[in-house]
């Protein structure tokens, strides 16, 4: 990992964070005083990824053209890190015709075929789809890989098991990523999961399993690099569990009354911590940090501007696109 790599990862993490922070503000801006989830410029459920940037950035740093990512109900960080156009993505979240999906998909259904990016709001169901993408890549003789993401709560869903076994038996180029943010809505990991590391489950499929502790983007980068290389080399799938942090509620509006670890959440924020470590190692200056943030803010501003200025669809457009 070079100093440039570090800076690039930091920059991407900040870009994502500034995005999520602004979306949060915009989301809440016009829902008061009587808070209504369906109201406002951004309606519906909103699952933000703030705190989980190390996972997306550390993994996607290894991806190239033709590689696929399937993400979850909490998809923004992976979408951005994988190169999905911020304008089109934002316009989708705003339900506009210029959105990735012309307003039909929304924040849990972002589809960008050019970047082979997709996501789904159904727990763990992206895992099998990634196996099929990997089948296609392998059959076509490319060295592309498919990355599939879920949360730690999702690792108790049957689809998880079926996909790992399938990818292992067929030796598919898949990297299975679990973002362990300790919580599945209000249920703590310990109450839902019969082991402390899902990496241990990899052995049941005869594939490598690694758990990365401490929400550390550089450690993620290392572990993901090994998994991606392995997949590209035709050696098959790997499982990567990343211990990360849900900085916010499960979705916006979640009061988190259940959350026992709420007090220490802010101090575990990976971005200030990474900034401090980069400054200590001399890879980042205060001025650079300001610049990175300003650039991110400018890009986010522009994307939101683009979205707001884009037209809303017409009611009758709802009848299109059922069949090709």
């Amino acid at each position, binding site marked *: 990992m070079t100093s440039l790599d570090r800076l690039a990862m930091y920059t991407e993490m900040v870009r994502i964070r500034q995005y999520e922070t602004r979306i949060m503000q915009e989301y809440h801006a016009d829902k008061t005083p009587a808070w*209504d989830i369906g109201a406002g410029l951004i309606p519906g459920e909103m699952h933000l990824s703030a705190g989980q940037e190390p996972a997306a950035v550390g993994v996607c740093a290894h991806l190239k053209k033709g590689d696929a990512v399937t993400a979850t109900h909490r998809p923004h960080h992976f979408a951005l890190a994988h190169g999905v156009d911020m304008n089109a993505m934002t316009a989708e979240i705003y*339900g506009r015709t210029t959105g990735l999906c012309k307003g039909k998909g929304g924040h*849990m259904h972002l589809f960008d075929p050019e970047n082979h990016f997709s996501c789904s709001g*159904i*727990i763990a169901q992206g895992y099998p789809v990634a196996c099929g993408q990997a089948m296609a890549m392998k059959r076509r003789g490319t060295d592309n890989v498919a990355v599939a993401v879920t949360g730690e709560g999702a690792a108790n869903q049957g689809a998880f098991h079926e996909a790992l076994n399938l990818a292992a038996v067929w030796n598919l180029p898949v990297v299975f990523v679990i973002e362990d943010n300790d919580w599945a809505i209000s*249920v703590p990991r310990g109450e839902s999961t019969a082991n402390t590391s899902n990496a241990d489950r990899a052995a049941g499929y005869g594939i490598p399993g690694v758990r990365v502790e401490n929400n550390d983007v550089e450690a993620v980068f290392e572990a993901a690099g090994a998994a991606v290389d392995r997949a590209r080399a035709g050696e098959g799938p790997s499982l990567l569990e990343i211990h990360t942090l849900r900085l916010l509620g499960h979705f916006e509006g979640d009061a988190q009354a259940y959350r026992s670890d709420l007090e220490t959440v802010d101090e575990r924020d990976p971005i200030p911590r990474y900034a401090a470590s980069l400054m200590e190692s001399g890879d980042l200056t205060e001025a650079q940090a300001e610049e990175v943030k300003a650039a991110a803010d400018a890009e986010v501003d522009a994307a939101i501007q683009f979205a707001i200025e884009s037209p*809303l669809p017409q009611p009758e*457009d*709802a009848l299109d696109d059922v069949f090709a």
Partner: protein
Amino acid sequence: MTATETPPDAGTRRVTTAKAMAEAIGLEMRDNPEVFVMGEDVGAYGGIFGSTTDLFAEFGADRVIDTPISETGFIGAGIGAAVEGMRPVVELMFVDFYGVCMDQISNHMAKIHYESGGAVKVPMVLMAATGGGYSDAAQHSQCLWGTFAHLPGMKVVVPSNPYDAKGLMASAIRDDNPVLYLFHKGAQGLVWMEKNPRSIADVPEEAFTVPIGKAATAREGTDVTIVTLSLSVQHSLDVAEELAGEGISVEVIDLRSLVPLDRQAVLDSVAKTGRLLVVDEDYKSFGLSGEIAAIVAETDPTMLAKPVSRLAVPDVPIPYSRPLEYGILPTREKISAAVKDLLA
């Protein structure tokens, strides 16, 4: 049992639909140690749509059980517990997630009693949130009651208001059969969602039952029959009130359950009005609206002064963006226009 024989007067205590559901569950739990609740976030959180509000505080983690995200696992476990004589109330958070556990629901929960020749009972309630209207898009906004009602062996209950929600839940828990209890998010009376005032209403404090299988005439009328259910009952009543001002008399039939289906209530009303509008937030084809139309067509099509009108989601997945979603939902405006069309 503390329930009265005939449903009591509503009284003057105003309660949301969500709270009414939770109250009914709580009353049954106090009465019967075999009743317990299980599902995702039903514990401290109280159910994402409030269906288990305050139960955790009263009954604790032993009887109000948060589960892993393993719907096949815990719905199957509910079936196993029911087979052993317990009375589990299991929540599937959104009905849209049925696809990860439909085998347990339709091949096991619904069939074991029949397959066993009646030897085994499955006294279980499976409750799930349905419906859209708040931009939750294609995987979190469906109604799907037609899907379940098509499959034999489970009762399907769909309350439209707090009173019925409480009484039907009590009936469902006491029923010796599996009951699928589908509640519309938009009719829960949640503080964080747009709502019709009809989602907060007078509900008795004590336990009572509303019988499963009896439709309600939510409003009497003579010109047009609207057959509907769940949140669309609220919309239809609004429209009926409005059209009354224009001299149009609309009868609103609230089905309240799809299985068993109160066919006679439909036929009696259509016999009176000669005009039938079915309003359904589920997909249009091969579902509820077709079944209701068929009931008339197979009984006596000459009852109809006009062809049947069906207002339902026009066979498209639920889109995200508000103008698109309201383009396909059965809104008050569309209901009103459809009633007028039937009279034109």
